[in-house]
């Protein structure tokens, strides 16, 4: 039943802010639950941080003593609360292995990861959007099927396959890029991009297919809508209709997926960071896991989850602001 409902602007605004508030509340709850889960997982771990710090020769008494000092003998829930209390003040603890504050470590590593993730996202969108638009213009044509085949190929190249293969062909054989290493952005943007290009490309490829398909499918659906036919019947050119009528309503799912991908990429560049020796978050967590540095792992996972959830919530809300259909539905 579709009908016009006149709601006062004040009420609409109130409903809107209620909606925004409830989304953020939910996001906060999800992050809380993630941290609890991390603490629980870590408590399952055989052998405690104390044992790691004291080394293999430590006596059980010494370990127990240190555990008590660190508060690790308390129930998990209590540990979680105390960690949480610190975390809200920005204190994610100090690594017992490197003696670095976890928040400082994250701050140092984050720019690298964000750069790779954003670069990869831009690369994949730059490939996916034209491919999707070209394919959608002529559904089921040879071009459409060819593009679909191409993205299927890209979809089948995971980062751990792409990294060594690209390095072999583009760095070792063609010598276009450095094999490994990282030049920070402060030392020159060009040099920085030179080192960032291959790692970003390796994670970008697998995203292209997802983006291309979702936009292609949505464009295909939109182009079959009556309003597209109506716009054509007004004499608007096919190109005009594609960009001015069909593209915007078709881009909402892409936007959502891209937002989620960015969140996922920030926690998912572990492979390329390890392969190309990039000083990013992924490497931090990989090393921390290897050395059983539970405090660091906990901090990074909580941080990445928070970033992911906040990004998702923002995308969700952005959706509402961009799509008048959603906006009216909520504001009613």
């Amino acid at each position, binding site marked *: 039943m579709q009908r*016009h409902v006149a709601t006062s602007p004040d009420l609409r605004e109130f409903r809107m802010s209620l909606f925004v508030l409830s989304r953020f509340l939910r996001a906060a709850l999800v992050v809380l639950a993630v941290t609890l889960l991390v603490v629980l997982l870590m408590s399952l771990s055989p052998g405690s941080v104390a044992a790691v710090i004291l080394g293999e020769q430590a006596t059980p008494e010494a370990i127990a003593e240190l555990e008590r000092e660190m508060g690790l003998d308390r129930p998990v829930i209590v540990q979680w609360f105390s960690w949480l209390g610190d975390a809200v003040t920005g204190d994610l603890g100090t690594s017992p292995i490197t003696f670095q504050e976890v928040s400082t470590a994250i701050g140092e590593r984050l720019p690298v990861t964000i750069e790779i993730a954003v670069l990869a996202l831009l690369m994949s969108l730059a490939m996916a959007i034209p491919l999707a638009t070209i394919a959608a213009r002529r559904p089921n044509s040879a071009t459409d099927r060819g593009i679909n085949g191409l993205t299927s190929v890209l979809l089948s190249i995971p980062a751990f396959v792409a990294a060594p293969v690209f390095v072999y062909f583009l760095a070792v054989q063609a010598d276009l890029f450095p094999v490994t290493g990282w030049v920070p952005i402060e030392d020159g943007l060009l040099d920085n991009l030179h080192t960032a290009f291959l790692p970003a490309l390796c994670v970008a490829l697998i995203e292209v297919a997802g983006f291309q398909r979702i936009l292609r499918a949505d464009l295909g659906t939109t182009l079959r809508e009556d309003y597209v*036919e*109506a716009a*054509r*019947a*007004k*004499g608007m050119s096919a190109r005009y209709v594609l960009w001015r009528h069909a593209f*915007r309503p078709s881009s909402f799912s892409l936007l959502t997926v891209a937002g989620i991908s960015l969140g996922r990429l920030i926690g998912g560049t572990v492979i390329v960071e390890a392969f190309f020796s990039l000083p990013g978050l992924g490497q931090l967590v990989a090393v921390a896991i290897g050395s059983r540095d539970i405090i660091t792992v906990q901090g990074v996972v909580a941080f990445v989850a928070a970033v992911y959830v906040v990004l998702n919530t923002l995308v969700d809300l952005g959706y509402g602001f961009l799509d*008048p259909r959603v906006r009216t539905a909520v504001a009613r």
Partner: protein
Amino acid sequence: MTAATAAQPTSPLLEIEHLHTYIPTVGGVVKAVDDVSVSLPRGQALGVVGESGSGKSVLARSIMGLLPPKVVRSGSVRFDGADLLTRPTKELEGLWGRRIAMIFQDPSRSLNPVVKVERQLTEGMRKHLGVSRSEARTRAVRLLNEVGVPDPERRLGNYPGQMSGGMRQRVMIAVALSCEPDLLIADEPTTALDVTIQRQILDLLERLRRTHGMSLLLISHDLGVVAGRTDRVAVMYAGQVVESGATQAVFARPQHRYTERLLQATPSVTLPRHSRLEVISGGLPSPIDPPQGCRFAPRCAHTSQACTEPGQRWYELVGDDHLHACEHPAPAVSGRVPNRGVSVVGR
């Protein structure tokens, strides 16, 4: 309708001859429109009635040329003398919206939900008439006023989702009207609307057609909608026209057995309680492999050998400008038809 054409003093605005529209599918070629000839004189309204699958909507799109590339058309569609079938798309785009406008069945789907009314209403004028943004806006307000949308200034800033179905269809009509077209094609313009709103929209179309001197092609499955609002009518069945003529004549003296049956199967508000409706038994023939000869023959009670001979043979009812393709036409006095002159209630 070539015979009728010859009788016209001036050439009709729209003249369709032997139009075929075939749609290739994996299961075979769908003969959606199969040899249709109709014409629409200037300033008149032509109704096309038929049930689903009769090809009436495909006919509308075939006239416009709004079809997927794989669809094949043959025959001719002459609009003001020019054969639209042979024109390149670029040229047609100059015609669409400017000289031929179209409105659709469901106004909630034929307006872009994420584009404000203003742009949807002005983009055609900006393209075809080359008017400035502010000029287009002024015209848009005037148009909305004309089609009876209250508070037009504010409406321009609305998205379609913020309006009722009836209002949306009024906006669609304003869009169609914006460049003063010669021909308006309305494809089931009121099917998605409630009956009181349908009435408003039909009245509006009628008024605008008269004040703007437009020709109207009104497509509907509802005999009543077409009956009151058109000068001529063509009845379609399974991709073909089976009967055509002056609307009054066709409804008063249906000749083709299909038309007759269709009229009799329509429940009317004048029927007595529990009156048994005349039914058309069976279902539509396959659009891919239709029967030879009269396509209605398999469901018809009055058939002979002649009905299955290939092709349609046309007969004219003299004095009525009324054509039909039935070998065994309904007698003029048949069934309930003569009683249909009675008004709904005594007032």
